[in-house]
């Protein structure tokens, strides 16, 4: 009798172990990202889509051009062809400000946009990053190439994404990397050449732009709606603007930074 009981309780215990084992197993696939059905991709209706365009300006005394000394690596001096200047504040004619990153920061919630198939390229050339400021979408491929006769070690100092650094020698094949989470902005440096800097904005939608040398930017194909538009500049900080786009409208949104 006693032994039967013992055997029974043993059975109960072991079946409990078994069942927790099973339930754990059953849970596993749910946590795996592959099993989550991807939310449907949002299609922008081209009949109603609008756009935003604008100019970014800098007001005030333009800081003098600061030369950058590449002589630490003589091969860089040669590869750069000409003098190198700090480009953290690039002001053109009429105060036009380049390299500002403009993006929709609110108003697109709940919409899921397709990841572009084409890669965005960062070239290390003349011991300089080209471009200096760029935007990509989450999971879009970033091709990193080294056109220089020297080794670089690119280091995106991400906070939300995984930070990493990787060596790339002369003639090495491109690296194909991805950022899996939105993050504005990821500062990028070269671990070997401390003057090399770039910034990457990662967004889960395609509505971003970098101001050109004449300060202009365009964000096309935007569904009608009310948005917060944010501008980021590496030295001058951020600003927000509310903007409402009606169907097929091309809305203007200019930004001005005040210098000292």
């Amino acid at each position, binding site marked *: 009798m006693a032994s039967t009981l013992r055997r029974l309780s043993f059975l109960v215990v072991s079946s409990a172990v078994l069942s927790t084992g099973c339930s754990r197993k059953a849970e596993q696939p749910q946590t795996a990202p592959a099993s989550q059905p991807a939310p449907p991709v949002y299609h922008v209706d081209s009949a109603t889509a609008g756009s935003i365009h604008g100019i970014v300006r800098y007001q005030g005394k333009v800081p003098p051009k600061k030369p950058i000394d590449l002589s*630490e690596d003589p091969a860089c001096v040669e590869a750069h062809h000409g003098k190198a200047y700090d480009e953290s504040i690039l002001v053109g004619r009429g105060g036009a400000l380049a390299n500002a990153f403009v993006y929709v920061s609110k108003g697109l919630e709940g919409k899921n946009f397709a990841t572009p198939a084409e890669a965005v390229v960062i070239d290390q050339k003349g011991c300089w990053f080209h471009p200096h400021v760029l935007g990509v979408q989450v999971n879009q491929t970033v091709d990193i190439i080294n056109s220089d006769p020297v080794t670089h070690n690119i280091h995106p100092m991400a906070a939300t994404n995984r930070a990493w*650094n990787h060596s790339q020698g002369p003639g090495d094949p491109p690296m194909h990397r991805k950022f899996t989470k939105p993050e504005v902005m990821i500062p990028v440096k*070269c671990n070997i050449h401390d003057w090399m800097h770039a910034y990457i904005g990662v967004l889960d939608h395609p509505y971003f732009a970098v101001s050109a040398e004449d300060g202009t930017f365009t964000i096309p194909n935007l569904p009608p709606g009310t948005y917060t538009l944010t501008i980021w500049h590496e030295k001058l900080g951020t600003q927000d603007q509310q903007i409402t786009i009606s169907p097929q409208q091309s809305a203007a949104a200019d930004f001005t930074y005040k210098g000292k």
Partner: protein
Amino acid sequence: MVPRSALIRRKTLLRGRIAFPAGRLGLGALLTTLLLPVAGCKSVVPAKPLGTPVSIHSPLGLPPVPIPPENPPTVQTIALGRRLFYDQRLSKDNTLACASCHNPKFYFTDGLQFSKGVGGEVGVRNAPTLLNVAYQPFQFWDGRALNLEDQAASPIANPIEMNQSHDVSVSKLRRDPVYRAMFRDAFGTEDVTLKRIENALASFERTLLSGNSAFDRFQYGHDSNALTPQQVRGLAIFINPVKGNCAACHTINAQYALFTDGKFHNLGEGVGDDGTSFKDTGRYHQTGIETDRGAFKTPTLRNVARTAPYMHDGSLGTLKAVVDFYAGGGNSNPNLDKEIKSIHLSGQDREDLVSFLNSLTGDLPANVGPPPGKE
């Protein structure tokens, strides 16, 4: 690659435990031997050297060579090992000798990124120099052999290297009367066995010593002019823990310098685009320990100016590229060695380091080229 090294590991373990010279027997035979210990021991040909003992002289900068008690070097085993080392009959199609990939002209490397085996099979690792291998506590980039005796059988049977079963190698050599005489002189009988081949190759390899470099004359030979001022600066950076920090792994001792700690470290060399996975898992392959993933044995830096290309995958072509790789902090990955994080090198430091690495080229030993009559 997996089954091959797993097999080697098992063999090493078994041999270590039962202290039984089972090299000639296959694994199956070995297991049978374990089950039937008495029956298995019937005809063991001794592999203990019998000839004229040799004391191997180490050049300036190197410690005495460690000698295993069961295989003391003799004039006869060294001569036999030398002949075997340059003998293409150890390969399936008689085209490759050990020296094909460990060529004295290239300081006992092959100068290639990856070695070419029989039939043009390309391996996945760079051939290390055999100069000063006698000092290493582990052989191979992943340390899968513990000593030169164990190591020697592996390239012969490896399908992407010499690709010849040990039985065939043994019977090929047995047909040659010169070998029969040499085996008799070295071990007492004419028997050709794998264990004897291993012992002879290992003893020859123990004579592949190279020291007395400019660095050695400066550091251990009291010749303060042996290094240029730039090389002296490079040496200071090499040992400075907050500049090069190189000596943390490429060790320099008070009496001698091996330029390797004989241990395994992860520099991130070969990490994939996901920043975590390794095509070649290195030491992990042997230990299965997660933190060993991507770790490789520290190579010696002696003669490094003559042994390009560099790293386990031969991916860096020049010493400048290697030094720049370190200057950038290597490649990040979960197991990156913490010593890499202390490296800080200015442009001038990098040039000085390269100049210093060029001072490590030593003398080549005498009597290690192709044996007389085989040039």
